């Protein structure tokens, strides 16, 4: 195929052959095991074919053999960077089918934990993205420094640093420690400093702006047509935030606006996530103000939960987009079918459209900016 665009030669005189580059399952821009084959001509990407499935573990099928408490561990592992949000969709689906009323304190604590997980997940994005753009390791270390504080808090609450298995149908597994509020305040203080560090390091850096502005643009119409959600969609200008449009838990009592950006390029996706960390800090403070004492499970919780027949689709705003759980129950204590609507898989469909026509170096950055985690894509 012959390129006309920017060469001074006549197109017919200078025929070159396109190169197939395999950005393989293992590559240093770690976002998990993901493979894409780029067809490039010089430096311009002509075509992109993604290959997924390297991390498929059959989570949905496994959940059919496990009851509603055992399945929570599997949900953690489908999105390990935002495990509380993943568990939340699942337990909300179970509660909707079983018509369980969750006590207020449990809901507030769930909100706080989900927002904290959003903070840690977005910090992870900032770290990996900074490394993709080329800063040698500094953003990654800053991100890990902030994540350590959050994860230490999670370890004090649930016992585990990444696979919490803390939510249960009806509330929480056990009560939070007594110094919960002070610890959360400490974490928020350190997170604010982390946001300031990243802001100073990257947002106004001319080289960063030159690398990311105008790169990987996707318009709002295209994004909606593909089915994107989350910060990647909001960066194209669509103010769709499930916490606002379909409030779950007690998000309707909180005061916030969805963060959007015009343009839909890589810089906007970065900026939206950076600002969402600040927004989450603010939301957590609002939740802490409203947190009261009380029970964390309903009084009459059956020992073994049996659901009536029915089906339900519950969706929440995970850090990466709309994470939905579609559950079909035919009686009994195990779901008949569990389907996870994964945000990353839908967002990934936009990769080809965003990358074709850009340079090779930009293809890597664009992949980083969609912020995928392969365990959710492959489940």
């Amino acid at each position, binding site marked *: *195929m012959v390129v006309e665009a920017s060469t001074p030669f006549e197109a017919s005189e200078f025929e070159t052959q396109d190169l197939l580059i395999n950005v393989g399952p293992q590559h240093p821009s770690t976002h998990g095991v993901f493979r894409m084959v780029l067809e490039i001509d010089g430096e*311009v990407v002509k075509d992109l074919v993604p290959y997924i499935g390297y991390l498929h573990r059959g989570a949905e099928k496994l959940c059919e053999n496990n009851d509603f408490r055992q399945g929570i561990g599997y949900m953690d592992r489908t999105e390990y960077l935002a495990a509380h949000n993943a568990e939340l969709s699942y337990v909300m689906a179970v509660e909707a089918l079983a018509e369980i009323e969750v006590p207020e304190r449990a809901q507030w604590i769930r909100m706080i934990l989900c927002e904290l997980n959003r903070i840690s997940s977005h910090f992870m994005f900032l770290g990996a993205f*900074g490394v993709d753009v080329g800063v040698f390791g500094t953003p990654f*270390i800053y991100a890990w420094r902030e994540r350590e504080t959050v994860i230490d808090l999670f370890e004090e609450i649930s016992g585990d640093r990444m696979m919490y298995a803390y939510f249960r149908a009806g509330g929480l597994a056990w009560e939070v420690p007594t110094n919960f509020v002070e610890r959360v305040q400490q974490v928020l203080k350190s997170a604010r400093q982390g946001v300031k560090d990243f802001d100073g390091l990257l947002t106004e850096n001319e080289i960063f702006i030159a690398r990311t502005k105008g790169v990987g643009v996707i318009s709002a119409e295209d994004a909606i047509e593909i089915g994107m959600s989350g910060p990647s969609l909001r960066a194209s200008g669509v103010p769709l935030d499930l916490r606002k449009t379909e409030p779950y838990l007690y998000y309707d009592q909180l005061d916030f606006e969805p963060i959007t950006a015009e343009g839909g390029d890589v810089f906007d996706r970065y900026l939206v996530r950076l600002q969402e960390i600040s927004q989450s800090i603010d939301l957590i403070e609002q939740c802490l103000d409203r947190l009261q004492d009380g029970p964390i499970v309903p009084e009459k919780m059956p020992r073994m939960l049996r659901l009536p027949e029915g089906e339900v689709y519950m969706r929440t705003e995970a850090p990466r987009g709309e994470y939905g759980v579609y559950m079909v129950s035919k009686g009994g204590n195990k779901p008949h079918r569990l389907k996870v609507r994964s945000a990353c898989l839908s967002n990934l469909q936009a990769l080809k459209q965003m990358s074709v026509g850009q*340079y090779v170096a930009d293809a890597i950055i664009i992949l980083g900016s969609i912020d995928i985690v392969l365990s959710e894509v492959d489940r």
Partner: protein
Amino acid sequence: MSTEIFGIEDVNVWVDALIRVLLVVGFMTVVVMGLIWIERKVLARFQQRLGPTRTGPIGLLQSVADALKLVGKEDLRPRNADPWTFELAPYLVFIPVFLGFVIVPFVLDWQIRILELGLLYFVAVSGVNIVGWIMAGWGSDNRYAMIGGMRAAAQGISYELPLVLSLLAVAMVVEVPGTDASAEAARGSLNLNEIVASQHEVPNIVWQPLVTVVFFIAALAELNRTPFDIPVGESEVVGGPFVEYSGIRWSMFFLAEYAALLIMALVFAAVFLGGWAWPFGIWMDDAPPRWAQALVVAGKASLFIFLVIWVRASVPRLRIDQLMGFSWKILLPLMLVQVLVNGLVLVYDWPEIILTVVGLFGIVALFAMVERAVRHPRPRPMTAAQLQGEAAS
């Protein structure tokens, strides 16, 4: 023929040359290993972590451990690699760096050789390693290596020009002092020793601020350092032209990079910061002892190295087209203007303060041009729609 070295009279020239060469090799190997350690520790501190701590006290033997590991590795060669090109490429990258050491002025009367055309020689040999990169890239029979090699060569050639012009701008206007305090001063010299001596009152950074900045940027590019490390961009084409090399061959590239860093640091210290001459003075009678001068030179070179590492820890990587645009469209015009101004000052004997003023304006102009380039980037090569339209046709 015979010559004298270190006060020993009547030494055969060949023996003398051999001794100097061995000194350079020994000095360089040790210092480069130290440099690797310093870089890892300082970079770690910028990232709020410790660097190597376990091999030797505070990790000092880390480079030795790395070298031992690399020596023990299997010497792989791709089957279809062109044997001569593949084998010779490391040497062509490594040897010019050693050659560059010849003209570096360490202290008052000690260099390997005092060449009248020192700067010209330096620029000439530092261009040879570009050939080495191309040979490495092509000889590896690997498309990633070839991409990396081509990028490295393009970058190296593009940034030679601002580098050369910046050194030229300085060499044009230096006032070389005479043999003692009362003799007349001559203008213009390529001899590095004389350039250093000319800075006995004021270092060149004061007279040529813009040139210093441009030299720093061009040196970063010549050294393949962030933000110009596309050829060895680890998150993209892993390793660039050196991806197929393993063990000792790879370590030669690595050492060459750090040795080049050291040379650039010493040249920077000599040309812009005053080398051993500032602030102590140059006359043999009241010059301070050699070890003090050596410390001063080392301190100035360390400043350069610290700045390079600092920039590496903070700044993202430029894309190849942005990199080239920066050199050709921003640095080169600025340097041409600066050379013109320097020429005018030289010919019409204007006061040197004009140089400082012009230089500061030049730095402002550099900032403004970078802002403009960032705010109004070049359009994309082609949009997806265009490509799809082309695919359909």
